Structures are given as structure tokens and as C-alpha cells.
């Protein structure tokens, strides 16, 4: 990395935060803090973020408050070779925003078909769990979009990242984090 890139990278990583834009100024925040402060989304629409938060919370309790929507939104708004998403590991073809848009649309389409026209975020917990369980097993008739089991795998991984992949997540499970180079602010 160039010295300039390294400084920027280390500032973000060691600062335990991602770069969010607030009032036209780039600031470093954890996704949870970005959500709490109501940082505007850059790529996802409000409706997509609502679906993502509801889906994340269904998959991994705590994902909403941990900022899954702000995490994904920030990550799909930067160059793909800087992204920290599991999508990178699972060979999703960039730009990653295309996958998330298609996946969230597929979830809402399935929810509308199953729940009298209501989006995923608008239905009850039991209906949300039922849809996710069917999606996981590729059992939703008329599913349109990236494969249901793959959407389950990838979105579940994102939710696990923000809930269990942080220093706070390790502390919550009672596991020593033991970093060589620590992300600070418990991110």
C-alpha cells in the first residue's frame, strides 16, 4: 500500500470504524453508532434498509442495533477491492450493490406473495421466520433473484459479522479476543 493509503486504512481500522458521510463531511463511526446517529444511507433506499434490518434481525438477533444496514450500505458504496464483506469471500461478482438490491427485492417479492402484499419488514416475527426458513431450504415457489439458500448464507454472514465478529461480540460470548493488532472502539 502507498503511505497515504496505509494512513487512511490504519486510521479506519485502528479507529475501529468505517467512513460515513455526515453533513458532507467524512467521519469514522462504527455501524452501530452510524445507525444510532441516523447517518444518511448512500446506496440503499430506506425501504431496502428496512428489509435488510428486519432480515438481519430475524437471522441473528441484535443485528439491527449493531448496524447491519449501515454496514452493508457503507460497504457497497466503496470500491469492491476495499470491501470487507463476506460477499468477497463467497465469489460474488462486483459491484456488490447489485447482489444486495436483487436479494432484498427477492425477499420482498416473496413476502408480498406470501403475506397479502406486505414487504418483509411489515410482517410479524412468525411470518418472517417462516419465510427465512423456506428461503434457506429453497422452498419458496416462484422465487425470483439470487438463489434463496445463497441469500440466506450471505445475509446471515453479514449479520453474524456485526453481532459476533466485533470485540463486543466476543465479549458477549465470554471469549478472549486476543488481537495482535487490535481494532479499537471494540469494532
Amino acid at each position, binding site marked *: 500500500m502507498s503511505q497515504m493509503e496505509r494512513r487512511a486504512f490504519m486510521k479506519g*481500522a485502528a479507529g475501529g470504524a468505517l467512513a460515513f458521510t455526515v453533513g458532507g463531511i467524512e467521519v469514522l463511526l462504527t455501524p452501530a453508532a452510524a445507525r444510532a446517529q441516523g447517518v444518511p444511507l448512500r446506496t440503499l433506499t430506506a425501504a431496502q434498509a428496512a428489509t435488510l434490518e428486519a432480515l438481519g434481525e430475524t437471522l441473528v438477533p441484535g443485528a439491527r442495533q449493531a448496524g447491519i444496514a449501515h454496514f452493508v450500505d457503507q460497504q457497497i458504496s466503496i470500491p469492491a477491492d476495499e470491501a470487507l464483506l463476506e460477499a*468477497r469471500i463467497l*465469489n460474488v461478482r462486483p459491484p456488490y450493490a447489485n447482489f444486495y438490491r436483487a436479494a432484498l427485492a427477492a425477499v420482498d417479492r416473496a413476502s408480498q406473495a406470501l403475506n397479502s402484499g406486505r414487504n418483509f419488514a411489515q410482517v410479524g416475527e412468525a411470518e418472517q*421466520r417462516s419465510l427465512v426458513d423456506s428461503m434457506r431450504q429453497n422452498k419458496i415457489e416462484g422465487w425470483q433473484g439470487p438463489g434463496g439458500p445463497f441469500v440466506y448464507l450471505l445475509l*446471515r454472514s453479514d449479520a*453474524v459479522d456485526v453481532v459476533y465478529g466485533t470485540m463486543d461480540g466476543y465479549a458477549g460470548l465470554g471469549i478472549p479476543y486476543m488481537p495482535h493488532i487490535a481494532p479499537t472502539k471494540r469494532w
Partner: protein
Amino acid sequence: MANEKVDVVIVGAGASGSTYAAVLAKAGKKVVVLEQGPDWQLSDLISSDFWGRRVKPAGAPFLLEGKNPVSYGYQGGWGVGGAALHYFANFPRLLPNDFRIKSEHNRAHDWPISYQDVAPYYDKVARDVGVSGDAKAEEIWRPAGDPYPMPPMKTFRNGQIWLKGFESVGIRMVPAAVGMNSTEYKGRPACIYDGWCHVGCPIGALANPLVTYLADARKAGAEVRPWSSVTRVLTNAQGTKVTGVEYYDQKKERQVQEASVVVLAAWAAQNPRLLLNSSTDKHPKGLANTNGLVGKYMMTHFSSGTLAIFDENVENHMGTTGAQYMSYERYGKTAHKGAFGSSFIVAGTALKTSDLGGFANARLDLFGPELTAFMKRAARGFSRIGAFGEEMPNIENRIELASDKDEFGMPLGRIIHSYDDDVPKLWEANFAEGLAIAKAAGAKEMWSGRGNIPTIHLMGGTIMGTGAENSVVNSYGQTHEIPNLYMAGPGIFATSGASNPTYTIFALSLRGAEQLATKWSTIAG
């Protein structure tokens, strides 16, 4: 833009490219290493699963097809150090039976060399980069060699707890050979067992290229140019010699680097892509591809993971991402009745919560409150063992050029891969034995890590052989058609064995580089 001609240009700064660079720079050659990604430093290696994804593949994607598409995102590299910047550093070697499958079983093909040809280089690599283990203990399965320079690594309860189970089925486990420091070695510190190997070891206790061969190469004068995307290998008008490479720099400007010798060490998939994209009127099917074998015989490993929860705190956060124990007890090609191929067994790995290898993925069927409950149980008592399996080479598993192009106009690579009928049989046999081991070990819950059959460790594509009738390169990685063009890395493996490949990558690269240095005037002249 043309640069000053050098002796050798090496494409890729991972395990194989770094080894070539070190040997040739120390031999006094002017060496330039072109690396597609960033110039990572140890201080970039943050202990975090998601920050660790920064060192995983980026750039032009490969298109993945076939019944068992190759998954390369977790194991591939991006930037200086390549995949070896974040590998697990398990250092099993291939065994003598890997080199003669055709002779002994009339399957696949023999290597053009024997184990004894490679063994001295295993020993030399161990001294160069630092290996911990018990070579004497391994001699129940392989010929004697030199002792490893460091004693075995520490073991922890998450590994020890399995030993009773292995014993019950007659599998002898020995200390795992790993490219890690159990003691201080060559000025590099001993491991502190915090389990972050898989995102890169920033203290240099793990033998990544930044602290081993690439450091040696730089010290000897090799120049490393990051953000350099090579698109073509260039030849003379007659097509008899390569003359250098074309690449694009960080400003996306075209450059030419002339050299007397070209070494492609860009990974098993990228090397064929480059050869196929370097066609000329003299090489209409691509360089070194008159026989049509470039890109063919792609191979992977697959693993049968047995997962368990024990009724005690196994401290699964302790240790390394590599193994504590290993065994070749099922390495015979017919060790499992009704199946064919070697299996290599490991036990005792440190675990994290997230990412592909994290224990949140140990029960992919769970979500919601059930996942929350599982995470709490697993944090205390979860552990796993694994058996890597061998895939036989199949000419239909291949790399091709696609019609889609990358930002430099170079066609994307398409990897087509399907397992044959042998693979599920071996996969199942190792699952069955794994559950028996878990039961005998006293696990409270146990299950097989199923799903799609995984694809691990991409190999082949420019395989070695006795001549142009059966292969792309000779045993040194030198192409049969163009003597000053070398291939390096797992692409030259003739068969895959079941052992993690990086130790063999280092050994074969050292062997090829020393041959090139020794016969320099003949080859480069």
C-alpha cells in the same frame, strides 16, 4: 512505456514468486516482481475477520461453472505475499505414493519425478522459512529426512480432546508440521497462539513471504512493483523465446517490462489465463499450448469436517488456525474400502466466531434465537477435526477465456469444475469415520459438516510431465515449448495428493529456481 530490460520478470509475489525472486536475486540476477495488488506490510494485518478480507482476492473475477464450481475467495490472495500472507501454514508434504499413481493403480498419471527428488527441497525450505514439528514421528509414513529446525508447537484442549477418539479407530496422530515458530527463529518471534493466522500474522511468527523469501529477495536487490496487472507475455517474432510482459500500472497506463526470462507465479488459474491471452501468429492457441493442455486438469481438495460439542471448556480460541495434530494413516490411495484417493487428517485448530471458518457457520441451519443459544454453547465446548480428500485429475476440469473482459481489455477466465464419482465416496467415508472418532472421544453433540462438497486449494492447469505429449512443463516448471518461460506454483502439480499444498509449492519453486540459476546461460542466453 518500456522499462529497462532485466534478467527475470516474475509475475506474482506470493509463495512461489517470492521463492524464485530470492534465489535469482541472490544469484546476482536483476529481478523485477510484478504484483497485481497492494504492497502489504505486517502492520496492515489487523486481527479481525472482516478487516482480514482486505487481503483476499479482488481485481478481475473468475467466472465459476460446472457441477462443483471452484470457490477461491477464501483462500486466494490479493497483493504482495499472495495467499501465503494469510494461509494456515499447515506443512504436510506429499508422500511417495503421490508421485506414481499411474504405475501403482493405473489411475491419473505419474509425476516425472519421485518423492526423493523433492525431499531435499522440503528439508531446505524447512530451514529457510522455519518449520515446527516432529520429523521423526512422521517417519512411520515417509522416508527419513532432516529434523525440523524447531520442536512441535504447543497443544491445547481443543486438540487433545480428540486423541482418544483417533486411537479408537487406529489412527495415529503426530505433531503437525507447520510453518510457524514454536521458538524464536532467525530473529522472528515465537507464536503467541492467539488464532489469528488466517487474517495474517503481523509479528512474523508465521512463515509468510513478507518475512521469508520475499524479504530475502528484497535484501538481495529484487524490485517489487505492486499494483501491476500483467495482461500478456511477449515473444520474439519467431515465437521461440519470450521477451518480457505487458502490464498496466497503478495509473492504468500500459507498460512493457523486457526480460531474459519470464516466470509466471500468478496462481493456478491466472497463469493459464495469461498464457491463453498471449496468443500470436506463431502460438495461435496461446503460449506453450500447441498440445491444448494449458488450463486443463484443474484440481481441488475437499474436506470432510466432523464437528462436535464437548461437555467441558475446550478453549477453542487458543492455538493457531493451522493444526495441532496430523495423520497420514488414511493416505493410501485405497485406504477407504470402496473409495479411491488419499485422505490427510488434521485436528486442533483455533476458532473464531465469524467468517467461513467461524463456528457460527458450524450449524448453518440455525438462525434467530436458536443460533443465539448455539453460539453460547459452542463458545465453550465446540471443536472440530477434518480430513482433506484427493481429487483425481480430469481433463474436463479447465480454465478458458470468456467473452467478458476486465478493465484492461483482457478476457476474464472461466473455471469449469465438476467432481467425478470417486469424490463423494471418499467424502462419505471420511464423514463416517469422523463421527466414530467423535463418539469415542466423548462428544456430547456431533455432526458432519455437510452442504455442497467444498473445493479447496486450486491446483493444476499447467501440469508437469515427461514431455509435450502429456503436459505443459517439465519437473522444474520450464515450459516444453519455450525454454525461457517458467510456470511456478500449484499449477504445475501433476496430481493433487491430499496434503495442504504450500509446502510443496515452496519446495518445487526452490527446485525450479535453483535449476534456472544453475543453467542460466543456457536458458536465458
